[in-house]
């Protein structure tokens, strides 16, 4: 296919269009980052105002405490509460002392912002989301968890951390949160002790000391100048250079413009959260560059031409491709990206290739240890290989038997043989695990009946691995059988008739007619079957549970354990998944190449 070379007259247009496309695409990404950063800035700003007001209150209460002790402080607090109800920024929480339960002995008052709309004129809701008017409690908890600069108003009279003496289990009298009551408790021996509980514990006022940030304006001037500059460069390049080079130059200029604007925007917001703006700006610049490179290689022109030439083919392909791209492609991209992050307690941090380094280096486990990646990879490859051989062998063999002419009870056999596929494999996998039970399982009883000794199926690698394989073979052969039946049905009967006329032996018929014609139809099932077996989760997880010592775990169960059983390390799990993907991609490439070579040979012969 040849790309129609644009005429000299149209040169600047190509470069300009590319630059514009690059600018728009990049700016969309960078703009997203900026908006997010600005929202974060707005929230910070309003929080900072609330903090300033709250600090004043603390000072007031602290001075009351200084003069008149804790009771005075509390009285002052009570007095202030009514006034504060009116404030839309500050809310006071009530006092709630509770004996012997540190988790209920809460801070006395908390002040923080109310509402998220403080970012003067920003219509966007605060990132956290839904309700514009959050409860003070909610925000206070969050402020606490952020833990920036905590100012504590410690009651000077109170004995600190004294409540442990209260005996757990003794039903204490309900108390009202008034500052002056006494409460009765009992110690272990039952003798009554009276304690003044009004102001025990410490009352903390949580304040975030955040720098106040002004509402950041989009650096429009910078943007305009940079964009115009990029377009001018593109125009100039278009006039001087070849169209492809010009397009590339334009895109580079656009990328630089975006990166510069994003930097300016991030600086204008001026808070740590603005990092998002910078990162997304960089991504936007990269996207702009990519557009340039593609344009320079003439990809767009070729794609357009191809679209026009093969309209029907693309229409046919569209439904399947579009849904797959959207519903699998997007999560898939997220999954790939996740491999470069570390997840801890709901937060993701970018760690580069650390996860991959950790996995590929074996993560501190020696090579023969079941937790070492390479060991698991070996087990997985063995697992896939053995299973696929057995699935195809048994499935194809049975399909051939079932395709014999004049076979009696064909329908019954077929329906019975497809049963393992039909019954939900969760329960059948567990049934198989039961059948491998050492003393009472069916398998060992059968071995016993045959005069063989019992096997402890889950105490050695080879036995546990075999148990998994048997179960998975049972689960998997019906599918291959059905596929083989479909493939056999596709072979024209005339060929067999001709072979019979020629007096060909059964073996010759099979090797010359059946196998070569079956190959292409079975190939997809074999490749996909290996992919599914490679990622077969249920059998490993339910039958051997990785025993002994995780040795029978395959990569996918290992990834699952990292994600859900070993401290929620989603990033590491995603890196595992990415490696699984790479291994399978290499395998598929090789398998396809082999298949194509065979196909080519067939066509030649």
């Amino acid at each position, binding site marked *: 296919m040849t790309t129609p070379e644009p005429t000299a007259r149209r040169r600047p247009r190509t470069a300009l269009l590319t630059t514009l496309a690059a600018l728009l695409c990049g700016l969309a990404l960078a703009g997203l980052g900026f908006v997010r950063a600005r929202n974060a800035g707005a929230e910070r700003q309003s929080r900072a105002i609330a903090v300033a007001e709250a600090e004043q209150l603390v000072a007031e209460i602290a001075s009351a405490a200084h003069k008149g002790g804790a009771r005075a402080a509390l009285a002052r607090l009570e007095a202030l509460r009514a006034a504060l109800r009116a404030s839309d920024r500050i809310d006071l929480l009530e006092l709630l002392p509770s004996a012997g339960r540190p988790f209920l002995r809460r801070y006395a008052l908390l002040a923080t912002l109310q509402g998220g709309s403080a970012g003067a004129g920003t219509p966007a809701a605060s990132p956290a989301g839904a309700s514009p008017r959050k409860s003070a409690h909610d925000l206070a908890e969050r402020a606490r968890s952020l833990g920036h600069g905590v100012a504590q108003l410690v009651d000077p009279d109170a004995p600190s951390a004294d409540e442990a003496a209260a005996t757990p289990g003794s039903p204490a009298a309900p108390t009202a949160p008034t500052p002056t009551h006494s409460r009765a408790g009992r110690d272990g021996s039952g003798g009554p002790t009276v304690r003044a509980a009004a102001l025990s514990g410490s009352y903390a006022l949580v304040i975030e000391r955040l720098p106040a940030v002004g509402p950041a304006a989009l650096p429009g001037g910078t943007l305009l100048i940079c964009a115009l500059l990029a377009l001018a460069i593109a125009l100039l390049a278009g006039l001087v250079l070849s169209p492809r080079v010009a397009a590339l130059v334009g895109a580079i200029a656009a990328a630089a413009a975006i990166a510069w604007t994003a930097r300016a925007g991030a600086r204008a917001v001026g808070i740590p959260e603005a990092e998002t703006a910078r990162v997304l700006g960089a991504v936007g610049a990269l996207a702009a560059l990519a557009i340039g490179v593609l344009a320079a290689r003439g990809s767009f022109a070729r*794609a357009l031409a191809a679209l026009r030439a*093969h309209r029907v*083919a693309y229409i*046919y*392909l569209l*439904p*399947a*491709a579009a*849904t797959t791209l959207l519903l699998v492609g*997007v999560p898939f991209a*997220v999954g790939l990206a996740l491999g470069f992050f570390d997840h801890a307690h709901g937060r993701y941090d970018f760690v580069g290739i650390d996860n991959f380094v950790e996995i590929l280096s074996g993560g501190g486990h020696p090579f023969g240890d079941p937790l070492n990646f390479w060991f698991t990879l070996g087990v997985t490859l063995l697992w896939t290989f053995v299973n696929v051989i057995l699935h195809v062998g*048994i499935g194809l*063999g*049975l399909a051939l*038997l079932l395709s*014999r*002419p004049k076979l*009696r009870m064909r*329908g019954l*056999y*077929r*329906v*019975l*043989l*497809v*049963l393992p596929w*039909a*019954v939900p*494999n*969760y*329960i*059948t996998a567990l049934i*198989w695990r*039961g*059948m491998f039970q050492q003393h009472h399982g069916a398998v060992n*009883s059968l071995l016993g009946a045959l005069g063989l000794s019992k096997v402890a199926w889950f105490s050695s690698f080879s036995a546990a691995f075999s148990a998994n394989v048997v179960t998975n073979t*049972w689960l998997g052969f*019906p599918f291959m059988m*059905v596929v083989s*039946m*479909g*493939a*056999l049905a*596709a072979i024209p009967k005339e060929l067999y008739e001709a072979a*019979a006329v020629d007096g060909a032996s*059964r073996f010759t018929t099979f090797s010359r007619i059946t196998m070569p014609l079956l190959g*292409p*139809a079975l190939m*997809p*099932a074999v490749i996909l079957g290996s*992919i599914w077996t490679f*990622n077969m989760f249920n059998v490993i997880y339910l039958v051997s549970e990785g025993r002994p010592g995780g040795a029978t775990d395959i990569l996918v169960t290992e*990834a*699952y354990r990292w*994600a859900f059983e070993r401290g929620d390390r989603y990033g590491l799990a*995603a890196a595992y998944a990415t490696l*699984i*993907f790479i291994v399978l991609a290499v395998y*598929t490439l090789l398998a*396809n190449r082999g298949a194509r070579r065979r196909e080519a040979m067939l066509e030649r012969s």
Partner: protein
Amino acid sequence: MKPPSLASRIAGHLVLVLACAFAVYPVLLVLKKALSPGQQFDLSLSPIPTSITLSHFGDVIGATDPGSGHWLFGRQLANSLLVAGLTTILGVTASCTAAYALSRHRFPGRRSSMGAFLAVQMFPATLLLIPLYVLLDRLGLLNQLLGLTLVYSTTAIPFCVWTLKGYFDTLPRELEEAARIDGAGPFGVFFRVVLPLSRPAIAVTALFSFMTAWNEFILAGTFMSRQESFTLPVLIHQYIGQHDAEWGHFAAGAILVSLPVMALFYALQRHLVSGLTAGGVKG
């Protein structure tokens, strides 16, 4: 082909009977559990129940939502049929056209799109759960059977596309050319000539698509949040608790769930044998 000799016929039956025993025995144990009273997981070897009760089946079929009194089994069976049926139709339709394009047309991006269909199967699905959840949420498809159907279809499409493409490759092109000479357009050729010839492959892919949607539980349990919109596997998995499980109910549910699959397979299996010669070439 000449019929096999008697000895070979007997040997064939022997192998088939053994294979059937291998295939059926664990299922019989499930059936036994479903029919025996009690909820404990049984370890005994005999597949014949000592005493029979239909109460597990009755309980599963009669399951109602204690809050609203809705008949859950019926609802969820309907949901399952709907989702699996739509998945089959959507998956097979989209795959047929795509596979035809991939088989008959040589266009840029053909190889890479074939590769892409395969590649999306390679990333372990368990780890895509949360991104997929967020995506469906953004698309407004959460809590909707349509969303679930679309997800299942995309899971089934790669296999269907590849299988159908492999099958289409074996169909002789002369037939299509003849039809074209007779004045059929590209779509006409596809619908009147290619599809009728491909019944075995369509049957296989239909069964596969149906199965993909029919037995799936984790996605259905995660993406649906109302009792009335769960599918049957979710209902059945409700019998598995944190520490223990109602195995009698679960086994009965598993048997019930596999019945429609058997029925579908039974309906489709005649298409698996009637091959090229019987179906199309002459017609």
